[in-house]
């Protein structure tokens, strides 16, 4: 496959209402592969003079992975990248469904949107035809209404749409972008960037084809995947239960956040279990493009709504983190977030934060405006989701995110904002999973498990860990030694996997190693990468993302976990007594990366080595 065949880069200037296009270059593919990686390179090149992430100059970059839309298993993903209004630094989000493959069928690898339209618009792309269409009639509509309205306006029920809801329009710092009604470019406030450009949606239709270099080998790979789904219990669990099964997995280790991370264990988690979700609410399983795992569901809450879903993160952030323990509230919250275009993790987190600091008397009445956020008040929480979306009452404060809100409140509220770089932490307590904790702290886009995702901390043997990383402690979730090295390795391999556009549930363990990935890339694209080269690409991507942050003034102080996790050991449950101090791991991580141990900055030698 030639780089040209991987797709074009489309530049859209919304201020000028103009656009231009060029093919991908060989050095771009070889250096950054695609998707998240190449998006990062574009952001690095185009954002040097940008001040405010909500200004017209911030480029909003949609990118598909090198394998998105191909025969590779679960090759469905796309990434949206920009400077984040939530963290102030590097930001991106990633989503599955069917939007990414359609971009590929239309012939585009990346769409780079700059400027700001004079009135609400949506981008309509159909193969070579690119149009900027009036969206004033769509502004204010939620994501479901928008999706339906564009399909009707274009007379095409098959057009793929990636859009924002009122939360993005209103610049809520953690607003998201939604495709296929419930799939989210969730994190980093990409919805707010899109809203700041007056861009309501991107609608794509493609009639092109993706040539597969060796179809017979591609069929072998798919057969192997079939075999794994039949034999491998972990894969089967994802395919039957999906991520709701993680409630029991995390709770059994005493690592599930409760009430804004005050606690990490639920004595009886049956009302929140994956089992109950399947039994009571799921109608059938759903899958993304070319996916054999079908981890998603179509569920119904009788008398309320039905839709695709449900993710573990949403269960916990709209559940135990805000003291709620019933599925109906969680499902209603999930539905609202999908339609408003809110990241469920950050929304739940902001509400949980409000509940805790209000308990401690830290929110003055002028911000509360009559609200009484209390743990367990499900109805109140659902009301807050609307208030956040429209920046009304207490929602105006919470729309800044917990960290942003804490900055406005002062008075020690900051201690209760469970964030890294301004982004809310996901629902795994880092005191109980120390390698994960380091991963959250150093992730380029703020608290995030997907950058490192060191799953090896619990599913490999020490012998295998020694073979791959050279030390056995990698498998011990309470150990500090070796985690710096582990996280660096995981981040590099994950960056590479992300740039291919495959779902992480495939690359989690099955296509984890670079050797395995190169055996996947060649038959599909015809491009040969060796394992070392691939690791280099991963390293290059991480360093490029880091340099965006360095330029924005981020240093070692930003690679930190909230003080609560050091000061307060987990009070009860299987991980009782554990806390976390990342300093030793961080030193080791910086050394392993070739970054200055005091500032966290990549050394000039490292940058030169990687060609940045």
């Amino acid at each position, binding site marked *: 496959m030639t780089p040209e065949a991987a797709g074009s880069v489309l530049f859209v200037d919304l201020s000028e209402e103009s656009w231009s296009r060029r093919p991908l270059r060989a050095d771009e593919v070889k250096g950054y592969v695609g998707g998240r990686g190449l998006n990062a390179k574009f952001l690095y090149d185009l954002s040097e003079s940008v001040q405010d992430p909500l200004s017209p100059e911030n480029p909003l970059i949609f990118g598909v992975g090198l394998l998105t839309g191909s025969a590779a298993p679960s090759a469905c993903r796309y990434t949206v990248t920009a400077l984040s209004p939530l963290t102030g630094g590097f930001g991106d989000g990633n989503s599955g469904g069917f939007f990414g493959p359609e971009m590929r069928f239309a012939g585009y690898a990346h769409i780079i949107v700059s400027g700001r339209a004079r009135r609400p618009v949506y981008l309509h792309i159909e193969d070579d035809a690119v149009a900027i269409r009036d969206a004033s009639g769509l502004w204010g509509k939620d994501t479901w209404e928008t999706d339906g309205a564009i399909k009707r306006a274009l007379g095409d029920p098959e057009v793929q749409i990636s859009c924002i809801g009122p939360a993005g329009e209103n610049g809520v710092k953690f607003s998201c972008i939604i495709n296929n009604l419930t799939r989210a470019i969730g994190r980093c406030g990409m919805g707010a960037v899109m809203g700041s450009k007056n861009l309501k949606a991107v609608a794509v239709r493609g009639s092109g084809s*993706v040539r597969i270099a060796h*179809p017979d080998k591609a*069929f072998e790979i*798919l057969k192997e995947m*079939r075999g794994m789904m039949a034999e491998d219990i972990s894969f089967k669990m994802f395919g039957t239960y999906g991520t709701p099964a993680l409630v029991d997995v995390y709770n059994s280790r005493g690592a599930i956040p409760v009430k804004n991370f005050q606690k990490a264990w639920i004595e009886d988690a049956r009302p929140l279990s994956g089992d109950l979700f399947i039994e009571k609410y799921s109608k*059938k399983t759903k899958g993304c493009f*070319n*996916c054999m795992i079908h981890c998603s569901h179509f569920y119904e809450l009788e008398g309320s709504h039905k839709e*695709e879903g449900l993710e573990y993160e949403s269960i916990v952030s709209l559940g135990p983190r805000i003291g709620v323990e019933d599925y109906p509230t969680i499902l209603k919250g999930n539905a609202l977030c999908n339609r408003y275009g809110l990241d469920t993790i950050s929304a739940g987190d902001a509400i949980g934060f409000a509940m805790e600091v209000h308990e401690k008397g830290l929110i003055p009445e002028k911000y509360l405006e009559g609200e009484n956020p209390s743990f367990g008040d499900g109805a109140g929480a659902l009301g807050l989701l609307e208030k956040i979306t429209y920046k009304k009452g207490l929602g105006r404060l919470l729309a800044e995110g917990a960290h942003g809100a804490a900055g406005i409140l002062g008075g020690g509220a900051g201690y209760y904002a469970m964030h890294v770089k301004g982004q809310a932490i996901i629902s795994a307590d880092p005191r109980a999973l120390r390698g994960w904790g380091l991963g959250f702290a150093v992730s380029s886009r703020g608290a995030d498990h997907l950058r490192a995702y060191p799953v090896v901390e619990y599913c490999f043997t020490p012998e295998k860990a020694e073979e791959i990383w050279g030390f056995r402690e990698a498998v011990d979730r309470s150990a500090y030694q070796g985690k710096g090295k582990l996280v660096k390795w995981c981040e590099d391999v994950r960056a590479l996997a992300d740039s291919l556009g495959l779902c992480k549930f495939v690359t989690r363990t099955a296509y984890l190693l670079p050797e395995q990935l190169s055996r996947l890339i060649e038959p599909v694209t015809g491009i040969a990468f060796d394992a070392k080269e691939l690791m280099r690409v991963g390293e290059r991507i991480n360093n490029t993302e880091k340099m965006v942050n360095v330029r924005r003034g981020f240093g070692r102080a930003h690679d930190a976990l909230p003080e609560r996790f050091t000061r307060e050991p987990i009070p009860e449950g299987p991980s009782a007594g554990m806390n976390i101090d990342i300093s030793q791991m961080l030193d080791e991580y910086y050394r392993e990366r070739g970054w200055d141990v005091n500032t966290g900055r990549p050394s000039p030698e490292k940058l030169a080595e990687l060609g940045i």
Partner: protein
Amino acid sequence: MDQPSVLLIDIEKCTGCRICENVCSLSHTGCIDPGESRITVVKDEEAGIDIPVVCMQCERPLCMEVCPSGALGRDPDTGGVTIDPYRCIGCRMCVMACPVGGITVTKEKQVKKCDLCGGDPYCAKFCPTGAIVYQKAAKGSAGQKRKGAIKMIHLMHAQGSGGLP
């Protein structure tokens, strides 16, 4: 003669993943190209409906009856309905006549349809949930009868009439 096999679609098992479309176009053209797939998953995302639509290889094909050039024929091995591209004049009467939407018109205005992959259909081979299976026709209806009976049992239980155990 061997009992004929047919593709059986169970829409309750369809996840909407479109692997059937992908392996169909891949095996026929070497590309992932939904426009070349002989099977298409039609969706209503709001209602959670995913339906693979494909030629049902009718016993009395309406497409064959309306074709003015005799391009539609029958494969003696699979029993499937085939299009002879040399006879096809591209009038697309077959597309209009087909009651199930089983015929694809490609972007090059070629008329294509499921040929059962010569007796080893790829869609059935790769469908991850068994929503598409290639099975003896009679066996298929037996499966549907069993499903119907189970639904009846649930209904009877729900109405408290003491139904079947």
